[in-house]
């Protein structure tokens, strides 16, 4: 039994160590987003530029996205492309603090790069919102760390409950607080479902 306790204690401790930075990042950026009006905000600065392309090679949209990212030296996560009604295609790239769109004409001869630079607030929000695999290896690692942080938080809660159950003799207050928070959340959900 003592071995099980020590194992759970170590899982709890080292899980927290591994993900503490990402969890703190989530707390800080989430708090800033929730209280956006407490922080200075300014409009994004927009830069736009046109480029002539001379490409004879046939490429699919994914290859175009990678090609344009390399050509315009965009260090950001590749997002899904959009086909517009006028035949142009928009390729999107996002990273904290920056959002770029490259619009390619229907004949694929001209590309327009439009880059938005956000304020510090927008950058923090970008860290919080970055998601989705497949936009480049660096961003895949980041998203993996976010997934790991989410799983670790669950492990952290479960192992924490186990440690509390084993360590604390008088559990009355713990049970009251735990029950109250669960009941409160369920009431909020019920109010939303029936509101």
């Amino acid at each position: 039994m003592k071995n099980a306790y020590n194992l759970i204690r170590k899982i709890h401790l080292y899980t927290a160590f591994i993900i503490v930075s990402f969890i703190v990042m989530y707390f800080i950026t989430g708090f800033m987003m929730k209280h956006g009006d407490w922080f200075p905000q300014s409009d994004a600065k927009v830069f736009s530029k046109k480029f002539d392309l001379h490409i004879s090679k046939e490429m699919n949209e994914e290859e175009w996205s990678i090609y344009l990212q390399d050509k315009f030296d965009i260090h950001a996560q590749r997002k899904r492309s959009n086909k517009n009604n006028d035949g142009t295609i928009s390729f999107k790239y996002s990273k904290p603090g920056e959002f770029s769109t490259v619009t390619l004409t229907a004949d694929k001869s001209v590309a327009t790069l439009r880059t938005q630079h956000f304020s510090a607030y927008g950058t923090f929000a970008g860290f919080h919102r970055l998601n989705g695999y497949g936009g480049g290896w660096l961003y895949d690692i980041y998203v993996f760390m976010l997934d790991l942080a989410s799983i670790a938080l669950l492990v952290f809660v479960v192992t924490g409950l186990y440690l509390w159950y084993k360590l604390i003799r008088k559990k009355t207050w713990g049970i009251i607080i735990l029950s109250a928070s669960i009941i409160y959340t369920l009431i909020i959900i019920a109010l939303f479902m029936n509101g």
Partner: protein
Amino acid sequence: MQSKGDTVKWQKQITIPPYKNDDQFSNDIRDSLGLMGWTLPWEVKKDSASFQFAVSHAGKDYTVKIHNNENILDVYENRKGFWSVFNGLHPFGGDLPNTPGMINSWKYYQDFTVVVLLFSAISGIFIFLRRKSERKAGFIILFSCIGLSVLIMLSVWL
């Protein structure tokens, strides 16, 4: 009982408020109907004979239709289900129109949770520091993980 995805139509008679603009008109009708949620400006559809708008919150979507400025309105109510509400609690920051005060108290609970979690992280590391046996290995892992995490964040940003 209405289940997830089912759309229920009901009607209600109200006094139609004066029209100033789409937002004000939609909000006034929503308030007269007592619907909880935000009106969605991009969902407004109107012509000379009718006006339609949508109201939404984490648990339900409503589409409200007004025909020829008649006092009886058609309301189409769609329930989104448990998981939609569960997901919706994450970004919900309170101040939802026409809600019971308890729902808007969620924003204070969120703030409290953030403070408690930060305190847990800091106090947990403090408690760990008091044990000499694992201090060295723990410090190596802790600072390696913090260094690696910060490096990944900087690489993504720069």
